[in-house]
Structures are given as structure tokens and as C-alpha cells.
């Protein structure tokens, strides 16, 4: 019986359920110190003086002058320092690092920093420092929008910050070893950390490795930030000569680390009177915060998805991401697409309303089909499923009937149609040159890749793919813990690429290994011939063409497709919204492990519901004012409605066993589905989170 397509026992073992699995804070080393980060308390200005108001004996103290080589976190740009030298650009920017063996003594140490404050900038619309701008053009937008025979609908849509709230905060341990240093930590992308540390440390410290510890959730929040905290721990470890552990508490994690980019998206759309889209003019603004981090690529994915899953001959998308004096925003599940797909899906319902068309019919009329051409000029292949997921969602929820019967009651229903490109954008996968390795062991094979298990099931589904491609028992496949000195760099664990891209390389490795083994089992071959290793590099499909200068071409090798239906009840007095049921119909090629895939959809849908209704980051003077789980609220059991998950199949020929990426897709749909249900209820909402305060002040339709 094949492993792929069945919910086999997970490779995680039982450790997560017995408490035996070791997360960063569960690990200690002899003579270990604890590290603490002293951060700026102003959003913008210069440091005048730093004074240590405690007995510094037995403390290790690090500031920017201790940086071995380059004081810059090497990601897309070299603008963000590990430690402030003079200029402060946001609240909670790291300035000084302290280490001590006693956590209590460490927490009492008082560092007095005096500043010369300057006027901060918080409004992205007023920012003149543009980190990245994008313009995409298909057809001719201006002349059509000027025509008299089209209907023009316009609107502005806003989304707020969102905090990841992985239940395990960021944490790492730096351990000096054999003339180098090892990092044990809660990280999504061990090789990103290596890149950052090489830049920080320079050639004097060539021996650096990163070992991923069991990781208590990531969702993008442990994509780029661990480079920062790892750099800090390494500097303290090198200066003290001892292991140093830095674990953030919840408040520090919420105040200092990255969040989802807030956005303002403006749509101006021309349609025929029948409701056919003829021109879309879209403007996207994303607040990057104080440094570049990954904002250019977040903007890129956001812009590419901004026209939604619709066919339109004339599309212009202009985007920019700009500096403000707030902590840098970064990767978060969906990576720009949840923001822009929220805007377009709410806009489509407003269009339907203005034209007097049913929200399902307007999508039937305009949704992309195989052969249609996207905003970037990509001709969709047979694996495009917008209509399939739409029809199934409408049928399954009895949408039309509820839409009619619930009008004017406390109950409401709304839907959102969405898609999500799998893997890196454009030429990204080609440039990454990801590698995967399979190693023969005395009893089977070992997968040796840098892709991390962060709860989504990396170990298990990679093992399933190798099992079937190699034709051996699932039990004979083991998965190495990512240690950058021992595994192949399979690229970052992001962008819904771990199954589709890394899984594909592993499938090819397994085929090559099978050819080398001949008729022998791995154990037989090993006994006879000894070690055997197969390593391969990812080759994207040869038909992918992409021009980064014009943003034209095949933006993604394939897309996942989804239609979410939100059913909810609105309290007429308190404006409290109670979701009753969320139906998530999603097509992602085919599930490798149905139970894990279902978990991705249920969990992503929950995060999307939180984004829609509950999760509000309150910024006060450039700092998160509600940095506690007491008042930044994520969905609890009592907030979650029933989730009806429907997994539809439409295989992608370039993925392992037809699989596409899945992780991010479920994040795109819930927010617009909820807000479209609120519109059905008669509330003109164009912003999330849709808190009761916002609803109470929303215009009635």
C-alpha cells in the first residue's frame, strides 16, 4: 500500500505528547549564561549616552563595538544593524546585550540610555523612503476607465498588523565549540541564520553551524528574525567564551519581533453593465516598518495576487512598501497575499452590490479558467480550479438559499474566492538552487535536508514521498534533524514550497537511488557496497519564464485554489460577531498526508478568522501597546466555529505525486469571507480586524 495519500504514523514520534521533545528553552549546557537584550524606548533619535547602573562584575556586556566583522543582518538589504550604533529607528531596537549566569540578577540590571529624540514618522502614506516599488501593466487601463460605457467602482481597503503568536517565543542558544560556534534554536530557516552569521562574524570565524531544535510554531515569524537573535547570542558567547541562551518572554517577542505588514489597497475597476471585468487599476501600500527585512518580496507577492483569481484584459497594479518608525514587519503566512486578496474580494462583493448582481454570479462570470491569462501575463494550465472550488462551496453550504432566507436576520453568509502561488515568485526557485540529499543507512535511507519541521509535517510527508518513490517500507526512512553542517541546503521553509519543491527534489533523489540500488533493498546494498549518497538540485519546469524588470511572465509554477464560506451571527446590540460555521473548500493538487493537510487548512482558517475579527495590534508612539496575550486575543476553543474542510484534487504535474503547496492558501480566504458576510448583514466594512467598535461605526448598506 502506498504511503502517499494515507495518514501514516508521523515521524515526530510520541515526544511532543509526552513532553520529551526538546525545544530551545528545554536545553541547557554546562557553564551556560543567560542573555538579555537592552532595547530602545523611543521610535526615532540618537543615542547620547549609555550608563550601567549596576555592578558589572560577572556580566558580559556587548555593544556595537564588539561586532566582529559587519554590523548588518544579511537578508535582502544590509540596512538593519544587529546593534544600534548611534541612530535609533524604532522602539525596541537592540542596543546593548547583557549576559549573566543568574537570570534573576540579569533581569535586575539597569542600563540607562539617554537619547536625543527626533520626530518619528508613523503614517506610511506620508513616508518618502520607499524600500521597493512595483508596477505591473497588462493591456491599457487608463483609456478604458475613461470610457462612458463602463461602470466604475472604486474603494479603499485596510488591514492591520497581525502578530504570529507561535506559542513558543523566539529563542536560541549559542555554544562555542572547536574553534567555532553552534546555534541551537527555534528557527524556520537554518541556512538564513548561517548567511547572517557569516556576514556578522567574517572570515575570522568560519566554523559556524545551526541546529534546529524542536520548534513551537513559526508561521513566518521564525523565518528572518532568528538571524537577529542568533547574532546576539553568538556575540555574547564569543565574548564570554561560554554558552549563552536567549529566550524572549511573550511581551518582548510581541514588541520586538516582526508582524504582518499593515496595508492600504485602493481599487478602481471598470465593468460592463452585465458585470464583466474590463479594467482593474490597483494601488497597494504596505508599511514595512523601520528596515527592509523581506518587505520587497512581501510586496511582490501581494501585488501579484492583488487582482484576485479573475480574468481581466486590462490590469495595472502599482505597489510600494515604505519606511516608518515602527518595528520592522516581515514574513507571515500568506506573505502579502492575505492583505491584497482581502481587498479584492471585498471589492468584488461591493461591485456585485452596485450592479445588482449575485456575488456568486459575478465570480462565475469572471473567475480564471485554464487558458486564461493572469495579470502578469501567465497563461494558466489545466491545474487551475477557481470554478471547481466555487461551485462546490456554493453547493455544499446551500449558499443561495441562506443568502435569501437570512437577509434581515441576525444571521449572515458571505464567501471569498482566492488563490495562492506555490513556491518562490518568478525566477526565485531557479535562483535558489535548492539541494536535497538522500543517504543510505545500514537499515534504510536518511533524508538530509535543511527544511524544518515546525508543526506542518515536513518530516512525515518527505518520508512518504521517498518511501513510495524508492519502493521501500515507510519505517525504513529516517529524517535527519536539520544541522547545517550535515544536511543539504534545501532552501528556506517558507512560501508553501517544502512539499512541492523540496519534496520534488527528494522524489528525484529517490528515483536516482533506486536506479543505483538495482533490485537490492537499501540494507542489502549497504551490506554489500557500503555508503551511498544521492544529492540533486531543483530544476523548475522549463516553461517558466519571468522578467523581474517588467513583472511579466509565469509568476508561479502553479497555484492552490480556495473558496471559503463564512456563516455568522451578529449581535444587534453589542455588534459582537459569532462565527457559526466556516466552510473551506481548497484544491492543492493532492494531499500527501490527508490528516496533516486537513490540519493545515483548519489551522490556517483559524488564523484567518483571528485576522478578520479579533487580532488588533494597538500601536502607541510606534510601539505595540497590547503586547500580552491578555489583550491581543487569538482564537480560543470558544471563538472557533465548526470548520468544514473539503480537499479537492487537481494534480500539478511538476509536484511530487501531483502535490502543490498548501501552507499559506488557507490564510487568504477567511477575512474577506467574514467581511462579505457582514456586508450581507448590512454593514459596510472595508477594514480588518472587524472589531465591534468598528462595526458600530460602520455605515449601513
Amino acid at each position, binding site marked *: 500500500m502506498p504511503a502517499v495519500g494515507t495518514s501514516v504514523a508521523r515521524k515526530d514520534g510520541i515526544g511532543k505528547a509526552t513532553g520529551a521533545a526538546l525545544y530551545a528553552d528545554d536545553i541547557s549546557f554546562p557553564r551556560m549564561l543567560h542573555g538579555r537584550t537592552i532595547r530602545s524606548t523611543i521610535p526615532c533619535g540618537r543615542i547620547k549616552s549609555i550608563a550601567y547602573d549596576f555592578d558589572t562584575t560577572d556580566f558580559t556586556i556587548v555593544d556595537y563595538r564588539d561586532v566582529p566583522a559587519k554590523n548588518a543582518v544579511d537578508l535582502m538589504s544590509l540596512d538593519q544593524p544587529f546593534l544600534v550604533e548611534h541612530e535609533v529607528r524604532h522602539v525596541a531596537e537592540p542596543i546593548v546585550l547583557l549576559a549573566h549566569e543568574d537570570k534573576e540578577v540579569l533581569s535586575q540590571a539597569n542600563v540607562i540610555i539617554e537619547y536625543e529624540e527626533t520626530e518619528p514618522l508613523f503614517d506610511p502614506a506620508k513616508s518618502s523612503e520607499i524600500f521597493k516599488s512595483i508596477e505591473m501593466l497588462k493591456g491599457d487601463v487608463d483609456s478604458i476607465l475613461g470610457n462612458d460605457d463602463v461602470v466604475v467602482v472604486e474603494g479603499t481597503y485596510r488591514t492591520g498588523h497581525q502578530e504570529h503568536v507561535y506559542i513558543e517565543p523566539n529563542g536560541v542558544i549559542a555554544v562555542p565549540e572547536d574553534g567555532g560556534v553552534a546555534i541551537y534554536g527555534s528557527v524556520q530557516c537554518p541556512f538564513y541564520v548561517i548567511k547572517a552569521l557569516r556576514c556578522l562574524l567574517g572570515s575570522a570565524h568560519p566554523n559556524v553551524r545551526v541546529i534546529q531544535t524542536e520548534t513551537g510554531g513559526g508561521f513566518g515569524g521564525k523565518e528572518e528574525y532568528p538571524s537577529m537573535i542568533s547574532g546576539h547570542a553568538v556575540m555574547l558567547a564569543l565574548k564570554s567564551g561560554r554558552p549563552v541562551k536567549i529566550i524572549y518572554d511573550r511581551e518582548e517577542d510581541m514588541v520586538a519581533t516582526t508582524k504582518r505588514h499593515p496595508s492600504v489597497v485602493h481599487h478602481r475597476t471598470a465593468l460592463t453593465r452585465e458585470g464583466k471585468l474590463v479594467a482593474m487599476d490597483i494601488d497597494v501600500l504596505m508599511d514595512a516598518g523601520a528596515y527592509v527585512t523581506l518587505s520587497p518580496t512581501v510586496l511582490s507577492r501581494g501585488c501579484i495576487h492583488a487582482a484576485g483569481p479573475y480574468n481581466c484584459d486590462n490590469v495595472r497594479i502599482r505597489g510600494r512598501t515604505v519606511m516608518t518608525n515602527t518595528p520592522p514587519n516581515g514574513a507571515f503566512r500568506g506573505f502579502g497575499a492575505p492583505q491584497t486578496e482581502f481587498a479584492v474580494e471585498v471589492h468584488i462583493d461591493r461591485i456585485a452590490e452596485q450592479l445588482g448582481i449575485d456575488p456568486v454570479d459575478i465570480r462565475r462570470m469572471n473567475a480564471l479558467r485554464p487558458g486564461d491569462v493572469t495579470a502578469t501575463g501567465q497563461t494558466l494550465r489545466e491545474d487551475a480550479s477557481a470554478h471547481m472550488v466555487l461551485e462546490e462551496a456554493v453547493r455544499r453550504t446551500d449558499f443561495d438559499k441562506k443568502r435569501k432566507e437570512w437577509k434581515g436576520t441576525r444571521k449572515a453568509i458571505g464567501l471569498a474566492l482566492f488563490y495562492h502561488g506555490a513556491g518562490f515568485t518568478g525566477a526565485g526557485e531557479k535562483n535558489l538552487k535548492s539541494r536535497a540529499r538522500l543517504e543510505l543507512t545500514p537499515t534504510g535511507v536518511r533524508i538530509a535536508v535543511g527544511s524544518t519541521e515546525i508543526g506542518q509535517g515536513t518530516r512525515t510527508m518527505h518520508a512518504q514521498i521517498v518511501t513510495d518513490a524508492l519502493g521501500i517500507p515507510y519505517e525504513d526512512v529516517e529524517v535527519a534533524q536539520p544541522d547545517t553542517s550535515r544536511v543539504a541546503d534545501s532552501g528556506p521553509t517558507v512560501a508553501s514550497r517544502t512539499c512541492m519543491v523540496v519534496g520534488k527534489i527528494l522524489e528525484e533523489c529517490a528515483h536516482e537511488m533506486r536506479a543505483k540500488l538495482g533490485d537490492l533493498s537499501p540494507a542489502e546494498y549497504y551490506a554489500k557496497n557500503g555508503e551511498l549518497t544521492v544529492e540533486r538540485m531543483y530544476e523548475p519546469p522549463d516553461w517558466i519564464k519571468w522578467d523581474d524588470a517588467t513583472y511579466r511572465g509565469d509568476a508561479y509554477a502553479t497555484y492552490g485554489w480556495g473558496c471559503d464560506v463564512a456563516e455568522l451571527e451578529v449581535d444587534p446590540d453589542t455588534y459582537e460577531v459569532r462565527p457559526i460555521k466556516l466552510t473551506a473548500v481548497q484544491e492543492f493538487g493532492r494531499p500527501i498526508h490527508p490528516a496533516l493537510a486537513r490540519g493545515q487548512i483548519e489551522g490556517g482558517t483559524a488564523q484567518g478568522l483571528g485576522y478578520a475579527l479579533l487580532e488588533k495590534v494597538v500601536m502607541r508612539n510606534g510601539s505595540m501597546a497590547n503586547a500580552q496575550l491578555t489583550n491581543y486575543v487569538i482564537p480560543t476553543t470558544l471563538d*472557533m466555529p465548526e470548520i468544514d474542510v473539503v480537499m479537492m484534487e487537481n494534480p500539478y504535474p511538476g509536484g511530487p505525486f501531483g502535490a502543490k503547496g498548501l501552507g499559506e492558501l488557507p490564510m487568504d480566504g477567511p477575512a474577506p469571507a467574514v467581511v462579505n458576510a457582514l456586508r450581507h448583514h448590512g454593514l459596510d466594512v472595508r477594514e480588518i480586524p472587524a472589531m465591534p467598535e468598528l462595526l458600530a461605526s460602520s455605515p449601513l448598506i
Partner: protein
Amino acid sequence: MQFTLNGEAREVASHPMARLLDVLREECGLTGTKEGCGEGECGACTVLIDGEAVCSCLIPASQAEGTEIVTIEGLGGKHPLQELFMNEVGAQCGICTPGMIMAALSLPEKPTLDDVKTALAGNLCRCTGYSAIYRAVLKWRGMPVPE
């Protein structure tokens, strides 16, 4: 201070106002109990004290004097709920899992879905959306599972 920990008498030297969470993790070396927020909101540090599920980050060690404490390690690794959490994918990243399991142990014999939701309302999970956790817990109690 003395208490019974996972069935055995235990004497600890920590400060009486130390958080029970720290006493368990650092002095007793039982790292299965996790810290997610330190303010009693996330439930990752849930343990049983005299049979009741509590957040160990909110309990001063002195308050545990003379009590019977059970942590995730006290289940020994063979509890059916532990296997169900893995098989039903009620655990994804796993950091909330020990606390979630300890909280579920306080459920009545034949819990409804609403009972499960109420019992686990103080335990946050960011990965699963809770559905798979309900499936694990209801199956453990032999109750019908909504599909």
C-alpha cells in the same frame, strides 16, 4: 517545601515565591511543562494540582506545599490520549500539547463537544484551529466525533 510530584515525595529548595513552573522545569528538570506567556493566558504550563488543572506560571511554589502535582511526565508516555494527539494531529508544533493534555484530563467521563471546548478554553493552540484536538479528546472518551 515538600509535595508529591508524579506519585513520588519531593522536597525542593527553591524560593517560596518562585513560580511553580520554574521549580518544575529548573529544579526538578521536568521540561515537558512549557512556558508560552507567563501570565496564565495560554495554558502551555498546565499541570494538575490535587486533580485540578492550573497554570503553573501563576502558582508560587509555597502554594504547592503538601499538594499532589502531576505533570505531563507523570503520564509515563503510554497514556492513550498521548497517542491520539499524535495520530489525530491534535499536536502540530507540539508546544501547547502537554498543557492541552493535562487540561483534557480534568474532563468528565462522557464529555460533549461543548464540554471539551469549555475545558480547553484556557489553552491556546495556534496551529490546529482546535478541531483535531477535539477529535483526539472525544475518541479517547469514546464519544462520537463530528466529521
